[in-house]
């Protein structure tokens, strides 16, 4: 599944800082762009998602920025907290509900 490239692989941020995770894709048929959050021992949980008709979506401290022409979308976590420490996956989806998971980003927020 080389259609999705996620970066960075790991990220360490101070409490209160901004965490930024990027996802680049190749398939122009993707029409749904979610980010999933996974804690150890748990399944991935939908965090925030965007459709391609908007360029940005904000939910609390979490924002998705979407650049259709560049085929990229990113997750911004404002005022990062230790409780945000988890693994984050981008998983763009095409019709038929087929997700293409990125390689994951391990985020550590230092108190």
């Amino acid at each position: 599944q080389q259609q999705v490239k996620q970066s960075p692989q790991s990220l360490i941020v101070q409490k209160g800082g901004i965490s930024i995770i990027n996802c680049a894709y190749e398939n122009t048929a993707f029409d749904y762009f979610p980010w999933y959050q996974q804690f150890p021992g748990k399944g991935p949980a939908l965090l925030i998602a965007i459709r391609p008709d908007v360029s940005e979506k904000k939910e609390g401290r979490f924002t998705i920025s979407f650049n259709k022409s560049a085929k990229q979308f990113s997750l911004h976590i404002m005022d990062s907290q230790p409780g945000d420490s988890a693994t984050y996956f981008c998983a763009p989806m095409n019709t038929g509900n087929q997700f293409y998971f990125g390689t994951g980003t391990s985020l550590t927020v230092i108190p």
Partner: protein
Amino acid sequence: SAVISQKPSRDICQRGTSLTIQCQVDSQVTMMFWYRQQPGQSLTLIATANQGSEATYESGFVIDKFPISRPNLTFSTLTVSNMSPEDSSIYLCSVAYSDGQPQHFGDGTRLSIL
């Protein structure tokens, strides 16, 4: 969102045996999926569980190794057959209410093969 229960949550099995993993959802869903996740790695789709018909398998996964059942809109099973140490992984069930809707995941089954 859906409440998804997977059983067992973990197991340790002997080489050559088979294990059936159950996925129960608290409401009817259109689509059910099975994934595999190696510790610290991303998720790989095994198959889409289709109600009343054979599952649709992804490249690299075959029915003889991973038979799947889906008798109704709230339940599915995945069997890992003739297990080897390479099958040690986390197996996750996910569901979607309809096409175009996000998937929701169970907490997975952690399987170790000795």
